[in-house]
């Protein structure tokens, strides 16, 4: 294990520690989405998955 991996791991851990309170706040205070809201999120997500699969085929 070289020093770059250790620095990368430390930086990621610091980033997690920094983001954790914000994530908890957002989780507690975000409005709840209805099933139609989640459906409107799933449609583009499925489109992205299909698009990425197409890109993989093109490599």
């Amino acid at each position, binding site marked *: 294990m070289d020093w770059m991996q250790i620095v990368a791991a430390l930086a990621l851990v610091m980033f997690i520690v920094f983001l954790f309170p914000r*994530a908890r706040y957002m989780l*507690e205070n*975000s409005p709840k*989405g209805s099933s139609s*809201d989640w459906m409107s999120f799933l449609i*583009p997500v499925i489109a992205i998955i299909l698009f990425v699969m197409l890109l*993989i085929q093109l490599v």
Partner: protein
Amino acid sequence: MDQDYSKKSRAQAQSGVETTNAQVIEINDGQSATINSARSRAGAGIEINKVLRNTYMLLSMTLLFSGLTASISMALNMPPMTYLVSVIGGMVIAMFVLPRFANSPAGIGIVFLITGMLGFGLGPMLSMYASLPNGGNIIMLALGGTGVIFMGLSAYVLATRKDFSFLGGFLMVGFLLVLVAAVANIFLQMPVMSLMISSVVILIMSGFILYDTSRIIHGGETNYILATIGLYMTIFNIFISLLQLLGIMGGDD
């Protein structure tokens, strides 16, 4: 005498007009409140369009600037550690310095500093992919794919005007879990896990594009400097992940 009469009648007429106006205002009190409300809505709409326009303008300029710094980094043949140093430096400035200057013109300079550093950090990675037999193809596909994903998702939010604020907590928790997995994979070094992490990052960042764009158009984000850095980070992460995914699946990584 005629003049006096004329003045008197003019004063009466004026007073009559004022009375009539007052009555109209009184009668139309409800309507005027509606008009005021419509005016304030129109004002807010103009403000939102201004934030959106400024965000996209600054975003396009920072992306071009990143491309320039990445080219310089490639030309200088920078070592691989440049990526790590640039990303850590850019993230520290974005998290601790930028919020303090987000409401001043200096904030624009800081955004260019961050995006320039991140672009510069990309240089060694792009050089590595460019040296592969189909590396040029992978880079162009990742670049084009990132552009299509960003424009497609932005167009989706702008066309539907859906409010994606409900995604906030879900995306943040998903992002934290991915970061934990990324830390684990630094030690585990599993290619399958790298593949999964890159795939999930693309989906989470796509969610952040929906969330951030929706926040702008619904007035949740009124600072175009912060909006730009948020969208830039999503584009940067999608590009890196797509590059890794196409590199691994292309069988040349």
